């Protein structure tokens, strides 16, 4: 009675969830009811629902528990109750990954899927596909083929989708059932047609010619299903991306703009604007379709259109200007997401004069939109700042106001990023930006962001007009924040002290106070900086306070090597490759997509790991760390029988050529694969490491180790290469080679160039003072060479000249000198780097533009006269 009362009270509390407070063990206990005869369908359905609810709530079932429940559930097949049976299918799908021996229900399911009850058939197919493993596939294949061509669309769809799922078990399922899928493609049902197309594509996915054939055949027939038409457009786009100049496909996509289904029209428009290669004129029809959608009654269509326009506005602002009027109307849209996108699109396309008005309008509703769209607004402002540098004051104020609002880490980080980007691009904005950021960290709950801003203050603050004003902000952090922020603040203080001697005594007082901190890291840092800064001021301490950005794993490995060596020579830090810095995109548009995740290891480090696993290379690796790895060079056309790509790894005295080979012939097995090279003058082949076995479609790698010539001038060379191997015929399906002996064969590859850039790399010191280093070079006995060139006809702009020069020489631009001011006719590019073997190179290129021809005066200073000569001679 007592419990009854309580139940009643709970009911009064507002119904609530009937499945609340369930115990897994009790429910599994109840599942024993399944074994009763006769089966009580209502009771069992209720218990089964409970089990499904538990699993979907994330409750973990053990293998034994799941198996027990599963076998009890199989008893329910004796009931003819439709609801219970369909619940059983769901149960099978949920339990099949956990329970053992699930194939026991195969026969029962095949009976249901071929039976008369239509309500069972589709669901039974889907359940069957989850329990099937590779061994069972043969047994059900016949039924699946029948089901694909079944009259009932639900059954046919279920079978088609299931066969897509089954491809994860057996790769060639789709190909074996392609005939049935082809037949299903002619179905009247929209879904069946769509799913059949999916299966057909899956079957041909790896074979580009087959896809081309399929698409060109289907584009001629008109698809009745809008879903299938959308898919066809996507397939066509993928083909267009891979090969250009296929006018037929482009015409097809364009013709879809006149389709009767809105979905297809949108898909086609979206595809056209995203093609990347289209010109403004080609975009016009797609844009006008999107413009029509902007006035649609359906919010989904308006949203889709404005979102797409927003993206196009980044690459083709001119094309979108036609829609400005429609977009203005959408600013007042009741749907805030649409309004935000409309406004940010206008910001991208609009003129400088309208910026103020639009910003005011955004401010009215910025608090009402979600973080995700606030980020979109921030990105639009960032693009705007780059477009109209003069407007930075208005935009900065707006950003700082946004910083003060509530928001998540991602949103705040986006704002901070934007402020930083604006500061970098525009020196006028620097002071204001730093002030805003200082204000922000006063009240910032995101530790990672605070640390980042403190780091930035330490870097940029000392060079500002009045460095002392930042000290207070930074020291406040030391008093108020958690340990990691305090540690960052201590480092920032030390940087000020190192860069601004007048502040040194005051900061030393602050740092000595920090030595009483409760956290180890903070105390350690404070003590370290105190000790360094108290010594006589001297430019060398700067690098101890602001260490160059070296890659940590390489440094660790090099130090390990050094410790195990006799340690007679001092440790050479220039051997260590710099950490990779993310290149800011140089275009004025910032892409809205998420920034590429920076990998933990640089390219060199990942290659180093890979090379270290080849025992034969240990000899080379032990002498010096990997100096530089070149980008991948293709030595074959991408569609030939054998595919060879090369990566050149430079060491101090050795060049390791890594050839990644791929065999695309399914009826051949290659053995003892090597890339034979004719060593050019001065080079010496140390040894080759062949790839013992190269099976169809499995990548293999062979290495060739060369010794660089003594004379650095001879190191730039062209190497003819040939692929040599022992070919054996094999069975295309199993890959087992025929018994007979193979035959030797060879295959001509393209020539491989060893360039200057392969042997040169940047130092990774962004903050390096070029003039000081340049002058110091003269006193340190660097040899200097100077020459004047007229650059070739292909280079017509200063930016182009800078880019090609940096790429060609392999040096790194310092002091951000790779950014050319717009409309400038002259520019000075400052370059720094290291030649293999630790030879420093500095270069200054004075560029002048006249009648779209670039003249360059190049001065090179290097610790090795040969290297300096090599640099100048390789430009000419």
């Amino acid at each position: 009675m007592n419990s009854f009362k309580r139940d009643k009270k709970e009911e009064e509390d507002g119904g609530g969830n009937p499945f609340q407070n369930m115990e897994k063990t009790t429910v599994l206990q109840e599942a024993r009811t399944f074994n009763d005869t006769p089966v009580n369908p209502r009771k069992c359905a209720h218990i089964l629902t409970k089990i499904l609810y538990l699993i979907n709530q994330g409750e973990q079932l053990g293998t034994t528990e799941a198996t027990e429940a599963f076998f009890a559930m199989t008893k329910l097949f004796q009931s003819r109750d439709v609801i219970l049976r369909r619940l059983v299918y769901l149960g099978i799908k949920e339990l099949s990954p956990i329970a053992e021996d699930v194939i026991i229900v195969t026969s029962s399911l095949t009976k249901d899927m071929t039976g008369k009850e239509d309500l069972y058939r589709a669901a039974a197919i889907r359940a069957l596909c989850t329990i099937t493993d590779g061994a069972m596939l043969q047994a059900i294949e016949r039924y699946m083929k029948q089901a694909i061509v079944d009259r009932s669309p639900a059954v046919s769809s279920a079978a088609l989708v299931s066969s897509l799922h089954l491809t994860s078990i057996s790769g060639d399922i789709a190909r074996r059932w392609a005939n049935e899928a082809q037949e299903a493609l002619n179905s009247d049902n929209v879904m069946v047609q769509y799913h059949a197309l999916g299966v057909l594509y899956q079957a041909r996915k790896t074979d580009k010619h087959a896809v081309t054939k399929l698409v060109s055949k289907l584009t001629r027939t008109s698809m009745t299903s809008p879903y299938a038409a959308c898919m066809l457009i996507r397939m066509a786009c993928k083909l267009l991306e891979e090969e250009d100049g296929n006018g037929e496909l482009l015409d097809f996509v364009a013709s879809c703009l006149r389709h009767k289904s809105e979905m297809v029209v949108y898909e086609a428009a979206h595809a056209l604007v995203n093609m990347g290669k289209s010109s403004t004129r080609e975009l016009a029809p797609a844009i006008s379709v999107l413009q029509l959608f902007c006035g649609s009654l359906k919010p989904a269509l308006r949203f889709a259109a404005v979102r797409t326009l927003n993206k196009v506005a980044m690459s083709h602002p001119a094309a979108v200007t036609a829609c400005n009027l429609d977009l203005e109307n959408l600013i007042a849209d009741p749907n805030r997401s649409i309004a935000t996108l409309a406004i940010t699109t206008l910001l991208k396309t609009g003129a400088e004069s309208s910026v103020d008005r639009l910003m005011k309008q955004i401010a009215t509703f910025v608090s009402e939109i979600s973080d995700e769209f606030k980020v979109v607004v921030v990105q639009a402002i960032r693009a705007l700042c780059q477009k109209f540098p003069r407007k930075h004051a208005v935009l900065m104020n707006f950003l700082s106001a946004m910083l003060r609002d509530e928001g998540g880490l991602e949103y705040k980080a986006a704002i901070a990023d934007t402020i930083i980007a604006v500061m970098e691009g525009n020196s006028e904005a620097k002071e204001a930006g730093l002030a805003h950021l200082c204000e922000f960290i006063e009240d910032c709950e995101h530790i990672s962001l605070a640390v980042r801003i403190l780091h930035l203050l330490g870097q940029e603050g000392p060079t500002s007009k009045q460095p002392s004003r930042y000290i207070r902000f930074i020291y406040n952090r030391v008093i108020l924040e958690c340990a990691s922020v305090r540690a960052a603040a201590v480092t920032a203080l030390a940087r000020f002290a190192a860069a601004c001697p007048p502040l040194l005594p005051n900061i030393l007082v602050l740092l000595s106070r920090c030595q009483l901190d409760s956290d180890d890291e903070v105390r350690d840092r404070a003590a370290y900086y105190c000790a360094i800064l108290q010594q006589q001021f001297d430019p060398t301490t700067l690098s101890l306070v602001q260490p160059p950005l070296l890659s940590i794993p390489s440094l660790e490995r090099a130090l390990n090597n050094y410790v195990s060596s006799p340690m007679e020579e001092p440790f050479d830090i220039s051997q260590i490759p710099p950490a990779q810095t993310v290149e800011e995109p140089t275009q004025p548009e910032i892409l809205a997509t998420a920034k590429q995740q920076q990998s933990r290891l640089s390219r060199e480090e990942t290659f180093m790991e890979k090379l270290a696993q080849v025992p034969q290379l240990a000899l080379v690796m032990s002498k010096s760390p990997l100096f530089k790895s070149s980008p991948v060079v293709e030595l074959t056309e991408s569609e030939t029988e054998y595919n060879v790509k090369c990566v050149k790894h430079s060491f101090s005295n050795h060049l390791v050529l890594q050839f990644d080979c791929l065999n695309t012939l399914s009826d051949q097995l290659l053995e003892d694969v090597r890339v034979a090279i004719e060593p050019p003058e001065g080079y010496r082949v140390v040894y080759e490491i062949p790839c013992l076995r190269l099976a169809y479609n499995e990548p293999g790698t062979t290495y060739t180790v060369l010794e660089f010539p003594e004379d650095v001038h001879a190191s730039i060379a062209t190497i003819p290469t040939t692929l040599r191997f022992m070919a054996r015929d094999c069975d295309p399906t199993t890959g087992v080679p025929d018994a007979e002996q193979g035959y030797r064969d060879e295959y001509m590859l393209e020539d491989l160039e060893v360039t200057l850039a392969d042997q040169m790399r940047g130092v990774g010191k962004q903050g390096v003072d070029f003039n000081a280093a340049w002058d110091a070079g003269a006193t340190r006995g660097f040899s200097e060479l100077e020459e004047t060139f007229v650059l070739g006809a292909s280079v017509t702009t200063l930016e182009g000249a800078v880019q090609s020069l940096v790429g060609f020489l392999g040096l790194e631009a310092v002091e951000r000198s790779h950014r050319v001011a717009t409309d400038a006719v002259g520019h000075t590019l400052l370059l720094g780097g290291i030649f293999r073997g630790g030879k420093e190179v500095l270069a200054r290129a004075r560029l002048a533009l006249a009648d779209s021809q670039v003249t360059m005066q190049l001065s090179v200073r290097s610790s090795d006269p040969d290297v300096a000569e090599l640099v100048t001679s390789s430009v000419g």
Partner: protein
Amino acid sequence: MGLFDRLANIFGLRKKEVNVLVVGLNNSGKSTVINHFKREEERCIDIVPTVGFNVEKFAFKNVHFTAFDMSGHDRYRSLWEHCYKDCQGIIFLIDSSDKLRLVVAKEELDMLLQHPDIIGRKIPILFLANKMDLLDSLTTVKLVAGLGLERILDKPWHIRATNAVNGEGLQPAIEWLTDQIRDIYINKR
């Protein structure tokens, strides 16, 4: 049990439902036998090797049978025991022409008889010596000796030569099983 159920039971109106388990080595004819018990219009035309199990229903003399037609493939024989607990009768199929695997059948039978869910129960077992039409098939007498059936003392059992393809011998066999089940389970209640 509800009042209505009890009343129905007294008057003998209640449907009598029993579970029977159909086991035996693969290719001995289990699914074919069950197919024959079903009504004419429900029968399948072609029988394929069972994977896992099938549940089939048929009625005989007002007793409704739910037959668990287990797969006889050696991979799935371990699954038989999941159904031992709640069955009221066992039909054990033997391919009487397969002399070679008679020892395998004996082994499976012994394992079945010694299973904890079977050992103490008085459960009727019907042996069907199938494929009697084949020339080299063993007689029931030889099978009794070969399988050691005379050692089964605590359970009623019966062996019958059958031909599942044309149904010969099945009728009297299922009649025996029905009577046994009626005696042991239904009349006792």
